[in-house]
């Protein structure tokens, strides 16, 4: 690693809050990546009749366990449990609910308050809140990461082209962006989602239409500045072509600004997805999402565990990301020793 990056790493580490936030966030993210193994309505492992079954990976029918139907086994059914336990055993995950598992044995009408069975209670359709939070966290982060990746890609390319060539290209590009950013994003999203059944990728595409613009100005400014650097001029005098100059000499300059900006695009993307879900124009029905949980909290004010849990998870996630973003910004600050 070259000395500049070493110093940046030092700077990043010296911001304790951001450094620990990164560790904590990474832990949460990796933890939720394996959500299926933490919270599921299928056992992790079944030992039945001297053979091993992995229900999370493979699908088994009831008849595999000497049941009656050719449909997939419902391991939460006490009848199936009995059958399996007769000739072996089951290893359950920490939480025996998936995000869509409905608990039919609730002692009170849904939404049920926190209990030993459902740690944070259930939502108004009897689904476990902890399970939905774990899956919802994962989908929010994955969505935000993908969106950030693509909007950075588009933003950097557009900004680079505008900044590098300048002149008419820059002028036209800037005006298009101004008009485009004047469009009322949320209404457009709402209109568009009434045309198509929104899925993960549809939402990503629709939000990408507008989220790429944030970076353009930053990257463009960096390229405009770098255009007159002497080492860029020197590279041109060596005979390097435009693409080479942009990629090798100017992009690293813009990367600092880009990296500093990225955590904030990430939080923006999470906020965007959550608000769409809250309004009911987001992820398809039934998918675990924090926004939907907040909406339930609003609809069920007598069940405060819904709103509070969603709020805590969402604010924790955003706060961690902002702290990380601050540390990244510090790390790239040339004035900071």
């Amino acid at each position, binding site marked *: 690693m*070259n*000395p*500049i990056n070493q110093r940046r790493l*030092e700077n990043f580490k010296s911001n304790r809050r951001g450094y620990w936030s990164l560790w904590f966030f990474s832990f949460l993210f990796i933890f939720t990546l394996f959500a299926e193994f933490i919270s599921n309505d299928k056992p992790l492992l079944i030992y039945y009749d001297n053979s091993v079954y992995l229900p999370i990976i493979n699908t088994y029918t009831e008849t595999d366990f000497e049941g009656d139907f050719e449909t997939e086994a419902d391991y939460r059914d006490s009848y199936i449990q009995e059958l399996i336990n007769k000739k072996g055993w089951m290893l359950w995950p920490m939480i025996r609910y998936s995000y869509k598992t409905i608990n039919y044995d609730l002692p009170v009408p849904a939404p049920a308050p926190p209990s030993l069975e459902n740690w944070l209670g259930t939502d108004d359709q009897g689904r476990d809140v902890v399970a939905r939070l774990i899956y919802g966290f994962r989908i929010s982060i994955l969505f935000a990461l993908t969106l950030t990746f693509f909007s950075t890609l588009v933003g950097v390319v557009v900004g680079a082209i505008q900044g590098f060539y300048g002149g008419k290209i820059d002028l036209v590009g800037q005006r298009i962006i101004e008009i485009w950013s004047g469009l009322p994003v949320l209404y457009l999203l709402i209109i568009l989602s009434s045309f198509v059944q929104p899925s993960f990728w549809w939402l990503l595409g629709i939000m990408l239409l507008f989220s790429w613009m944030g970076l353009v100005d930053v990257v463009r400014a960096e390229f405009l500045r770098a255009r007159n*650097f*002497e*080492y860029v*001029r*020197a*590279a*041109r*005098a*060596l*005979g*390097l*072509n435009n693409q*080479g100059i942009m990629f*090798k*000499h100017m992009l*690293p300059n813009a990367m600092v600004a880009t990296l500093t900006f990225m955590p904030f695009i990430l939080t923006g993307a999470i906020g965007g997805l959550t608000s769409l879900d809250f309004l009911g124009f987001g992820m398809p029905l039934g998918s675990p999402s924090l926004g939907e949980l907040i909406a339930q909290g609003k609809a069920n004010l007598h069940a405060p565990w819904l709103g509070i849990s969603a709020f805590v998870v969402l604010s924790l996630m955003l706060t961690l990301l902002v702290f990380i973003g601050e540390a990244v910004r510090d790390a790239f600050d040339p004035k900071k*020793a």
Partner: protein
Amino acid sequence: MNSEALISVKDLRVTFTQGNTAIEAVKGISFDIPNGKTLAIVGESGSGKSVSALSILKLLPYPKATHPSGEILFSGQDLLQLNEKSMRSIRGDKISMIFQEPMTSFNPLHTIEKQVSETLLLHKGLSGKKARERVIELLTLVGIPDPETRLSAYPHELSGGQKQRVMIAMALANEPELLVADEPTTALDVTVQKQVLELLKSLQAKMGMAILLITHDLNIVKQYADEVVVMHHGKVIEQQATEALFKSPKASYTQTLIDADPEGSPAPVASDAQTLLETKDLNIWFPVKKNFFGKTTSYFKAANNISISVKQGETLGIVGESGSGKTTLGLSLVKLLKSHGDIVFKQQKVHTYNQQQFRPLRRQIQIVFQDPYGSLSPRMSIQQIIEEGLIIHEEGNHKERKNVEERELKVIQALKDVDLDPETRHRYPHEFSGGQRQRIAIARALVLQPELIILDEPTSALDRTVQSQVVDLLRNIQQKYKISYLFISHDLAVVKALSHRVLVMKQGEIIEYGDCEQIFDSPEKEYTRSLIDASFYYAAN
């Protein structure tokens, strides 16, 4: 210690702390400045001379900077013990400062009058008509022509020399007892440099203030300083009265500073040398104004009707003050700027080529830039910087083992040619000094085995002693590889040491063009003569 001393610095140390590392920038210096006298601190960049001067005004970035020891007695008070508020009443009133860079020391949005009268308002409470009268008086004092009309001028409307004069006027506004001048002339043209120094001298005689002059050029202090402190790496090497110092310097380092002017002359060009580069009626005009239909109506003529030629193995020096168009000319020859007129390189009509057609020729015409700090990408190692050109012009796959090794050998050879240790090729530019970086930039040009190198002020950002080393290096390289140089500089001493022929430019026009010796010995034009006089004025004495 001298009881009449206006200011007396004793065992001053300055340490900069950065994280866990502490850098000792000044390692204990002591000096006195008596009333009305001039003391000069001379040293190369990084010697701690500016830091010493700034600590007098306590303008260092505290608390990053600390003084482990030392005291600065100014009329009985230890400045280092004073708090910020009392310091403020001293700054600009009793002690004033002139900075190196007149271009950036002004606020571009305020008029001259406002900026000069600000210090009057702060310390004297003057405003309105009285302040205006005083500003006019000050501007007259520093020799600004027609001061009444200049009051409403903005900094960009003044020339570099005029700006430095206004800076001096600001510093003198409250008749300070001590004036700290930190490289007051480094950013100025030679002819202006002399005027500014003379102005300071005459003002000192008039107002009787003491001056602390900070500079890297030992020779200019000869005329102006009563005592000289020579600094090197934060330590005082020598401290003597000026006359004694020049007559019999005690330290050998001082001697190298005195002898730092580049000397010698280039080896003669072979008589059968072919013409390598030729231009005919080259015009470089930048559009300034466009009319309603988008047609350009007026131009800024950066270079006008330039016809030059360079032979193989020959150096053509291009000389002029800032704004004369010499750099513009250099850049347009390698098609980094648009120009009109004929450029012929090795019988090829380069001016008809577009960028793509010209690209293969770039290997043969290389350019070395002025600023060795800016021209090397901070994110690439020396090896990567030097081999970049090779990769661009290489046939075939540049990741192939054979090519990688071949390139490495070429880089090593180029580093040897510029007298750098080839083992340093895996380091990054920031680990090198200015002179070493300029060598790296020359190696980058050299590794392509060009036939012509355009050197755009390659020595002006360097210390005087390093300059002559680079000049020697360039001369040796020319002899070894028979490369032609186009040497652009405002420094006539360097040009004289390196050029066979010289082109003198002023405001985009050729003033004089001919044999180097002839021009230096018997210049035909008045402008050339004044340039030569100003350049060699200090060295000659």
